[in-house]
């Protein structure tokens, strides 16, 4: 049976992990390659490396990082963060990334999704959508409205989020990485109603992101929320939840999971 996926997200800057971690046995907690390898060994299903480097050196350090992760890690990983040019996507995939995640660049130029999907296959193209609830309705209500934002939730782009997700999937995105900026960092749980609405609107897998704080949040977004995968960063980095403990909990709750070991 196809399982739901747990994904750990690593923020990297200039080739180093930015957010701290609580891991004690790592040779160097700032080394994303060591961290990625550790998560893979613990049984995480997939990894996302989000590059937040803003220098001209970005491309070279990112390609070097992707090569090093691909050399060490025996599970799939996605790389994202400021990627726009077709040549960059090609270089990252040829370096060993399985998928590339795009956000602002495809909002500026939606046709890029079609072009990339034709060239590299939909399976390699993830469209990341950052959205914020823009009305005051209580969460999960039928009339909640969500808008797409960029720049960490600061800049609205004037698009309704569910419609944009549907367009991205129809243009050839193989997966939607859906982040609720209203939930990100709160640790109060994922945006269930929003995730459910997007999942029902698109024919491709949806990765839910933003708000994970407890094991039950994963169950909620994977079962009633309808997500195929749940992404988290800090709950894993700070050791609040172990991959094995979380997977055992989810299996016991009836979520299809690849066991950790």
């Amino acid at each position, binding site marked *: *049976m*196809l*399982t*739901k*996926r747990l994904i750990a997200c690593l923020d990297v800057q200039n080739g180093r992990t930015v957010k701290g971690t609580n891991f004690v046995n790592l040779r160097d907690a700032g080394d994303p390659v060591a961290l990625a390898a550790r998560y*893979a060994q613990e*049984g995480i*299903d997939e990894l996302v490396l989000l590059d937040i480097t803003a220098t001209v050196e970005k491309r070279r350090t990112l390609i070097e990082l992707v*090569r090093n992760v*691909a*050399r*060490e890690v*025996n*599970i*799939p990983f996605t790389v994202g963060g400021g990627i726009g040019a077709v040549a960059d996507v090609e270089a990252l*995939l*040829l*370096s*060993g990334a*399985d998928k590339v995640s795009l956000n602002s660049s495809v909002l500026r130029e939606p046709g890029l999704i079609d072009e990339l999907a*034709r*060239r*590299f*296959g*939909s*399976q*390699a193209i993830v469209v990341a959508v950052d959205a914020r609830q823009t009305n005051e309705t209580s969460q999960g209500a039928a009339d909640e409205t969500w808008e797409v934002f960029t720049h960490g939730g600061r800049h609205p782009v004037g698009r309704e989020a569910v419609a944009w997700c549907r367009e991205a999937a129809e243009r050839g995105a*193989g*997966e939607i990485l859906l982040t609720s900026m209203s939930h990100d960092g709160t640790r109060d749980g994922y945006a269930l109603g929003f995730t459910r609405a997007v*999942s*029902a609107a698109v*024919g*491709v*897998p949806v990765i839910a992101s933003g708000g994970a704080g407890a094991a039950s949040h994963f169950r909620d977004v994977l079962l009633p929320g*309808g997500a*195929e*995968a749940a992404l988290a960063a800090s709950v894993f980095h700070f050791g609040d939840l172990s991959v094995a403990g979380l997977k055992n909990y989810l*299996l016991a709750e009836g979520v299809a999971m*690849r*066991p*950790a*070991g």
Partner: protein
Amino acid sequence: MNIAVIDYQGGNVQSVLFALERLGMNATLTSDPDVIRGADRVLFPGEGEASSAMRALRAAGLDKVLPTLTQPFLGICLGMQLLGRHSQEGPAGGTELLGMLPFDVVRFTPPDAAHKVPHMGWNNLHDLKTPLFAGLHEPVEVSAQSDSNQVLAPSLLPTAADYVYFVHSYYAPVGDYTIAQTSYPAGVPFSAGVRYRNFYGLQFHVEKSGPVGERILHNFLTGDLG
């Protein structure tokens, strides 16, 4: 051990090379027919779209070379599908494939909105055949007629040993050539592995399937495949 990985601009060859490196194996990335013919094992990765892949193989003359090979040969993902006769993928009626195996590749037709395409993620293997899968577990089937003296496994939870990573929208149906099955949607099996003579194929990304994938790759490279 002389391993050739076929280079035809068919996608993620780097991941396959790194997986071999983790197993302590060196491989030659090549499109040279003589080098390919001289190898002990041939790996044929593939990603992307069938008609472009066939176009690239024809341009390199490999569509004529690959079916004549006699050493153990392993197609991965799209590389497995290309071993069949025909695929629904491609412009205007689909794509003619290499034809080493007698299957036609078709697209998943999900029964409802909860079943997404691509079939993406970790799924389990069952009905395993051939030494390619030596050392893997299979889920325990408990039938109503089972002998009451039979000792059942203490837990019927699946083990990590069963799971491998898939990403695909098209599949080969189950046939005589099937050596491993996976179900998507649940209860509807397709070919996760195929074989005819020396030609093996795996629909999943064996190079990205954790320790299970490493075991299967190791079996292919070092095992007596018969």
